[in-house]
């Protein structure tokens, strides 16, 4: 009897503790978002989004940084997606299980944990200097693609792994080759999971600052990039730049830019969640 009471008490305690932990995160996040909204919401209008940077806080806008972020996002996707998915398919379906493949696996997981500034240094040396891309959108995209590649690979592998073995069996038993099974069964069935992983990886990329600063992205660009070889800035760098200025007006600008950046990542995460739910239902 005593024991049962004790267990119930433990149960209750843990439940309360769990609620506190959960709320702590949520409360902090909402305080943060709230204060940002209070500071920045008034500043957001169409002009703010379409204006070029300026020395005067009231006239400055995020147009070039936003366009830079979009360029980076699109190019990073184009580079990282095929590489990541192909690598994941190879590791999951073709690579013989053995010492080499487990070595590869461990290293890919390690890469996901390497600080982003290291990727910046790598990008600076390889893409900017050796491949002579300069501090261009392309160099930035390659650097970020490298950064998110491990995440794309790991999440794609998980998605492919989640496809029931029975579907593989059925396809092989009908005389399908490995590639036919991958392309017409495994990839469509794991599409939702792959997409989720890719979008989450990209929403990380869109918030990255350090590696782009290292490869030489500008803090002030008077024009939006017109080609992959142009110089660029991105939203996080613009925010960093504004925050480090003494005038109050720029602080408001920074808050407004943060709202836009958050909006972009929230929308991307929302899309990821939507696809995950949609495709998961389809599979089982």
């Amino acid at each position: 009897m005593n024991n049962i009471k004790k267990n119930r008490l433990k149960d209750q305690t843990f439940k309360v503790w769990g609620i506190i932990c959960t709320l702590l995160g949520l409360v902090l996040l909402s305080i943060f978002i709230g204060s940002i909204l209070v500071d920045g919401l008034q500043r957001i209008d169409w002009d703010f989004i379409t204006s070029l940077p300026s020395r005067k806080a009231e006239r400055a806008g995020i147009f070039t940084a936003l366009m830079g972020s979009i360029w980076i996002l699109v190019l990073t996707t184009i580079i990282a997606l095929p590489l990541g998915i192909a690598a994941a398919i190879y590791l999951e379906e073709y690579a013989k299980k053995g010492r080499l493949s487990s070595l590869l696996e461990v290293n890919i997981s390690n890469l996901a944990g390497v600080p982003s500034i290291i990727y910046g240094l790598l990008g600076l040396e390889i893409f900017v200097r050796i491949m002579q891309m300069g501090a261009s959108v392309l160099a930035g995209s390659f650097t970020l693609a490298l950064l998110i590649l491990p995440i794309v690979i790991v999440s794609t592998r998980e998605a492919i792994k989640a496809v029931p073995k029975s579907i593989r069996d059925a396809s092989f038993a009908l005389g399908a080759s490995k590639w036919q099974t991958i392309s017409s069964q495994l990839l469509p069935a794991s599409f939702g999971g792959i997409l989720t992983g890719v979008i989450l990886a990209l929403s990380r990329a869109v918030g990255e600052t350090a590696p782009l600063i290292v490869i030489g992205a500008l803090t002030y660009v008077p024009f939006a990039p017109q080609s992959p070889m142009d110089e660029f800035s991105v939203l996080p760098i613009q925010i960093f730049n504004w925050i480090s200025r003494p005038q109050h007006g720029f602080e408001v600008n920074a808050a407004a830019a943060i709202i836009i950046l958050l909006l972009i990542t929230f929308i991307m995460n929302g899309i990821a969640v939507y696809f995950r739910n949609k495709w998961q239902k389809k599979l089982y």
Partner: protein
Amino acid sequence: MESQFILEINGRKSYINEVFNLMNNNKKDTVIDTNIKRKHKLQAKGVKVWYDDFMAIKGIDMNIRANKVTAFIGPSGCGKSTFLRLFNRMNDYVDGFRMEGEILKDGENIYGKKVNVEQLRKQVGMVFQKPNPFPKSIFENVAYGLKIQGIRDKDFLKEKVTDSLKQVALWDEVKDDLNKSALALSGGQQQRLCIARTLAVEPSIILMDEPTSALDPLSTAKIEELIYELKQKYTIVIVTHNMQQAGRISDYTAFFYMGELIEYDKSKKLFTNPEKQQTENYITGRFG
């Protein structure tokens, strides 16, 4: 001189005899060969299988007859499923799989170097324990095997899908929802769909790995009826845990135990008057 001549004639005679014998023998051989081809669709010769260090099949010789239903029975882990999956090489993907011996289909070793595994699997279809339709429409499920062969002709595909669904008596139930997801079907319907999908690629042999173990009695009865009809056109090998089922639908039954083929006979004989004590113990429910 004379003696030499006789010797020579004798020599030629024996030579001619030899040629005649050879021709006769050859003739006899080919007759036997076609006989085997007609009677024995599948043959196992000294088959041994390992998974890493574990020996799953310990040397089995077996002939499986054409257009008959052959049932594999035995307790769990006796190797009957492993043995079944040798015939369409589905064990190839299992880590640590290794095999010795030969499996002949229509007299040809399917583990030979030049064998195209994809081609083999089109001729040796398989139905699995749990219904495993693709997460696609009913139509796409049945058409898949044809589409991967590069067949794109819509009318032909439609005809094949219709035919196959009719063969498994599913057509009337689904003819209006061909574009619906196959996952919306009941378990029994799904399993019949899986059989239809197998029939669509026109195999000559169908392997079934406990096809009714996940189904209710009514669906099971339907599948059994279907198997009975299918044996007119196909050679069927079925693994089952259900001895009544083996008795009902199979012409021949093989009893496996611990990776060995203990007894293999006409089902009637094996179930009423088994030769081996182990078989009798198993079919009377004394173990397993």
